[in-house]
């Protein structure tokens, strides 16, 4: 920090706070706060270090006791870790949120139209906007879905879109998660813990509530019930207690008041799905499934799956049960197809995208492939089929040998890779020890689409807790923090 007139900036809590070219969520420049962060910094500098530590421990204990943990199994007792949690809230202004909201609604609408199109007439393919081979070579494309009508034409009922901020502060889309996005329970529990640990601070900001999310989700699922089922039986299908997101499945089912089922609880007969209950079999109408396509029906997809329900796909095809999300939505969040999303938005909605994409090079296009291979030391390369921060090359941090290896891989299978310029995500203050230090963050808001698009004002802010790291995934040492969207 540069010295300034205000004593606040000389507070020892900011001793390690360095700014660089990345956008900072608290400071607009050296010694210059974003206006909406004034009270936040005042509050953190006013509390003695011991008090901050005490609150940090209270928050950690609260997560542990609620069982909000990741489980690493192996021994009968299991080992459980809490999802690292940062105490400093990330604040988003009302104006910023308006743009995000508009952009996300636009994007989910267009992507739904895209899915309906490619699984039916395929106009966008005929018109050459998206190359056919791009769609058919995607491993998440489901031939079984072609010609199938889904309720309200909604393929993506629930989506979690990863946004980042560029150096100029603009939000852009990094990735769409259209299959089984997770993390929303952390958004909700982060808020609950934050309200308990910092009630005064929370009250002093006019933060928009997010607690209605589960009710909205239930409403969305209900609106997608098959016709003629006015009192639909809605269930959440989970892979079971060994899944790392099981806490979330249980949490959502409880908050919605619906049954949490596993594959073994469901049976199909005459294309109707039932669940086994103590009073016999009960018909199921809507399944909010948190099981991947591949595992959901051993008859239609992977035969070795024990998580799924034999015959489920036929029941779905017969229109007797709704699945949210539909099968085959993964084709629209393919990392290579991502590059076409701005064109997809223009094609269906005749609008310019409100939220831009990160510039993306596709090695399937020869010119771009040459550029990528020549600039591997500057670019980030991602394997299309991987997620969770695996299979990545971060150019500036890589060795010559790693770059050569990726060059070989790209030449061998261009469809499987994309490249993007190295972008510094924005950084937000985090409490590290008894100092505030900036760490890279992203933002995953959750979008619902039933009879209309609904977005709760907020999202999961994920933090790369390792200094300088750009990888926010929980499997790679990421944490999270509460996200406050202000009312004005």
């Amino acid at each position, binding site marked *: 920090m540069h010295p300034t007139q205000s004593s606040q900036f000389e507070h020892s809590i900011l001793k390690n706070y360095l700014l660089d070219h990345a956008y900072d969520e608290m400071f607009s420049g050296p010694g210059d706060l974003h206006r909406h962060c004034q009270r936040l910094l005042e509050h953190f500098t006013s509390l003695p270090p011991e008090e901050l530590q005490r609150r940090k421990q209270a928050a950690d204990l609260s997560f542990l006791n609620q069982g909000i943990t990741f489980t690493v199994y192996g021994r009968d*007792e299991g080992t459980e870790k809490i999802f690292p949690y940062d105490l400093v809230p990330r604040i988003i202004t009302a104006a910023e949120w308006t743009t995000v909201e508009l952009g996300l609604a636009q994007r989910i609408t267009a992507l739904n139209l895209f899915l309906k199109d490619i699984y039916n007439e395929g106009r966008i393919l005929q018109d050459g906007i998206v190359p056919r081979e791009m769609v058919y070579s995607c491993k998440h494309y489901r031939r079984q879905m072609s010609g199938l009508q889904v309720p309200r034409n909604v393929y993506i009922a629930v989506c979690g879109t990863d946004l980042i901020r560029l150096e100029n502060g603009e939000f852009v889309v990094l990735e769409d998660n259209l299959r089984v996005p997770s993390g929303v329970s952390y958004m909700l529990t982060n808020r609950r813990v934050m309200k308990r640990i910092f009630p005064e601070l929370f009250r002093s900001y006019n933060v928009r509530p997010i607690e209605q999310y589960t009710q909205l989700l239930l409403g969305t699922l209900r609106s997608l019930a098959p016709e003629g089922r006015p009192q639909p039986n809605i269930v959440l299908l989970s892979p079971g207690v060994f899944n790392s997101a099981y806490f979330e499945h249980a949490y959502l089912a409880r908050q919605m008041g619906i049954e949490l089922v596993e594959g073994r609880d469901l049976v199909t007969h005459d294309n109707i799905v039932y669940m086994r209950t103590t*009073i*016999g079999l009960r018909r199921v109408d809507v399944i909010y499934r948190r099981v991947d396509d591949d595992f959901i029906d051993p008859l239609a997809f992977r035969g070795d799956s024990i998580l799924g329900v034999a015959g489920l796909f036929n029941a779905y095809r017969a229109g007797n049960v709704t699945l949210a999300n539909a099968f085959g939505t993964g084709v629209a969040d393919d990392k290579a197809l991502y590059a076409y999303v701005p064109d997809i938005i223009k094609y269906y909605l005749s609008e310019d995208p409100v939220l831009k994409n990160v510039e993306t090079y596709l090695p399937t296009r020869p010119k771009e492939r040459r550029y990528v291979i020549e600039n591997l030391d500057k670019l980030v390369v991602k394997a299309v089929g991987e997620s969770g921060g695996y299979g990545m090359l971060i150019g500036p941090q890589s060795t010559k040998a790693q770059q050569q290896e990726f060059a070989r891989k790209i030449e061998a299978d261009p469809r499987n890779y994309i490249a993007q310029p190295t972008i510094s995500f924005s950084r937000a203050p985090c409490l590290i020890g008894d100092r505030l230090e900036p760490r890279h963050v992203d933002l995953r808001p959750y979008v619902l689409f039933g009879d209309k698009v609904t977005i709760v004002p907020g999202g999961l802010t994920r933090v790369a807790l390792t200094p300088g790291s750009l990888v926010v995934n929980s499997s790679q040492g990421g944490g999270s923090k509460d996200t406050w969207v202000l009312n004005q």
Partner: protein
Amino acid sequence: MLSRVADSLYWMSRYLERAEHTTRLLDVNLNLMLDESAASADRRWQRVLEALGRPKDIEWSGEPYALTQALTFDTTNKASILSFIIAARENSRHVREQISTEQWHRLNSLYLQVVSPEMQIKRQAEAFAAGITRPSEFLQSVMEAVHQFQGVTDSTMNHGEGWQFIQVGRYLERASATALLLEAYHEDLWGQPERIGEGNEYLDWMGLLRSATAFEAYCKVYTADLTPDHIFEFLLLDGEFPHSVRFSIDSVQCALEKIQGDSGKARAQALQRLSGRLQASLSYSSVDEILREDVVGYLRGIQAQCHAIHNTIYELYVDYSIQAALAG
């Protein structure tokens, strides 16, 4: 309610009841052991093992603390208190969304307490020998936690079908365990009918009552005058004491009726017959009658009937065939 959920709630409850029973048995006998000669210790600990149904791979080696260690902390042994707590907690994890947050907190805290790193040191057999581990302190804390869990269960969970399955699990386990406890003590209760009220017999009988938390309740009914017939009558047939076999079976019957009320009586005839018959036998038998006949046979009959009730519950609510369900 999902069959799988009913199954998990039932087992969560059974495992906790087992944990509590084993805990109390160990605590009572560790305590009484202090008052008696080494010679009678042999008999005492053999009886503890019998009352626990002779758990596999656990033998009496002449060392009470080694046995306590194995029955408390040895997770390779499925009949240890720790294994029961882990199993109960695992079952509750499978139905995390069905039980109240308070229930989960109570059970999860108990679990975290017993698997904490600090506890792992205390779990070693050496720590027992060196006196670092004070077993009774630990056993008391487990009993308290289980009691708190039951209180929280009763006061925060809907007394609907799920709660009734918890009742069935607890009381079926208790009826069966108390019958087995009486069977284990049978020889000592009537072995020497002439010597009453003195020395080790008195301690043994007190131990039996305490093993079922029954000492104080017994005294209120029969005064501190301990006689084998009265003890037997109290633990088997008393209608008001919550650890007696009769009370337990009444509770099972009551919970099953509620479940049947929710789920249609017609399917449940076989189950009604089984539990009703056992309940009637306990309600309308006199202790003299039972004692005149084959006592051990009677106690074993109770355990067999409990087992049959368990199997029938499974066939009816959990593991039924889909064809039968679609036809019905």
